[in-house]
């Protein structure tokens, strides 16, 4: 029974993280925006939903508000930053994630700072039921982004990624497309964050940590850029691959670093031998 619970726990986390990876791919893989603010949107969704539900709002409304506030943040972040390119955009959006972490740590009246927010209500009592909810939302997310990838909007985003000036010369308002891509991407990250908060029932400022950002980008790169399927499979691979370590009996002081080593090794091998990831359509170069 404990093993089944463990598998359900794993599946729930895979479901939540696949929402994050698939949505990150719209900005990074499809539109070519090196967005490091995704964890910031994830945290905003988590905090918003946690605080609203604890204030008595219905949980589903809180989750939706988490997504919407993350989307608004995404749109506001996009306004000044999408005029930047490559490394500069990455630095500016990474700064956003750090600022959000700082707000969570210091706005103690609302967030309780480093103490975090405990007792966040669960959506449903049992984990199997929650797994069903997460899988449904993950499936909806997958479907939405698959439709986007086939749509005219998605194709234009890809054109912007490959050559923004050429896209402009074909009459495309690239600025609006980039803002929309970041906004949609942030909405789903916020929903993912909200689900995470209601599953773990406790959040603190470490939710804005860079570790999760690296994990998300690793999943994206392993699965492949500009592939919705790749994002989902990359998430599964990176979640499952280090799991056998748990059963070898290493002490936890070794287990954590070993997971990091495995992630780094996988990334290195992918970058050398499969620069497009498993299902990617875009060369990382």
């Amino acid at each position, binding site marked *: 029974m404990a093993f089944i619970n463990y598998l359900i726990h794993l599946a729930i986390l895979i479901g939540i993280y696949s929402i994050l990876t698939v949505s990150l791919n719209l900005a990074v893989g499809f539109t070519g925006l090196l967005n490091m603010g995704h964890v910031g949107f994830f945290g905003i969704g988590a905090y918003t939903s946690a605080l609203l539900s604890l204030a008595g709002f219905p949980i589903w409304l809180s989750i939706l508000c988490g997504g919407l506030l993350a989307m608004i943040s995404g749109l506001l972040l996009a306004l000044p930053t999408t005029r930047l390119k490559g490394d500069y955009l990455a630095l500016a959006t990474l700064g956003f994630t750090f600022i959000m972490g700082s707000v969570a740590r210091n706005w103690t009246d609302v967030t309780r700072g480093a103490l975090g927010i405990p007792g966040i209500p669960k959506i449903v009592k049992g984990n199997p039921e929650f797994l069903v909810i997460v899988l449904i939302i993950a499936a909806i997310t997958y479907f939405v982004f698959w439709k986007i990838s086939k749509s*005219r909007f998605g*194709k*234009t985003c*890809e*054109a912007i*990624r*490959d*050559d923004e*000036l*050429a*896209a*402009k*010369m*074909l*009459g*495309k*308002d*690239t600025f609006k497309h980039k803002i929309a891509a970041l906004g949609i991407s942030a909405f789903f990250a916020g929903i993912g964050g909200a689900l995470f908060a209601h599953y773990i029932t406790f959040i603190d400022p470490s939710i804005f940590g860079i570790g999760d950002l690296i994990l998300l980008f690793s999943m994206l790169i392993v699965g492949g850029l*500009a592939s919705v399927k790749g994002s989902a499979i990359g998430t599964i691979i990176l979640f499952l691959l280090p799991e056998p370590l748990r059963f070898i009996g290493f002490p936890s002081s070794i287990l954590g670093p070993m997971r990091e080593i495995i992630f780094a090794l996988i990334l290195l091998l992918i970058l050398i031998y499969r620069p497009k990831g498993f299902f990617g*359509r*875009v*060369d990382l170069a």
Partner: protein
Amino acid sequence: MISVQKLDKHFGGVYAVHNCTFTVKENTITSIIGPNGAGKTTLFNLICGISKPDGGKIFLRGTEITGLPTHQIARLGISRTFQQAKLFRNMSVKDNLLIAKTASDSEIKEVLKSVHFPLDMNTKASELSYGQMRLVEIARALLKPHKLLMLDEPTAGVNPKVRQELKEILFDLKKKGHTILLIEHDMEFVMSISDDVIVMTQGAVLTRGTPKQVQADKRVLEAYLGK
């Protein structure tokens, strides 16, 4: 078709385009020639909204387009190719064209045929030779609804066969009623296809006229070779 009036653009103290004035008539092929650094590509960038002018005005069929964003100018009817072919390299030839306009497969095949593109439309753009990229870029510019087609050095880096094909393509387009403005360094190409030639030097229009008139103008030779 297009009217450029007293256009100015300077970078620091250097004028890239200075007091530049000319018009392009409907259904003609007009070539802009001039030595390197004459301001030809800067002029193209000003017309397309890629750079903002410091002075002067640009009109497209009577509508002022000076300083508008590039995508708006494109929507008003300017199609353009670049000195270096700018294709969406991770997309197929077909998808490259579909960004320009929603079109059926037969429309895409037709426009690719009109530029003598020899391969399948599902070929990935990154797999094309440079000459083929040029052809796809021209096809894409043609497919986008336009009033004026601007080509920046269409023969640069292509082999003599493709160059000859380009000549035929441009003649065909003119017959179909297109208005073309191009920058070109290949004088034989320019003189054989142009109705009108504009010679630029140091950011300004030195002279303009038919190919014969321009060839007979001593100032043109001086601009290229010096006095």
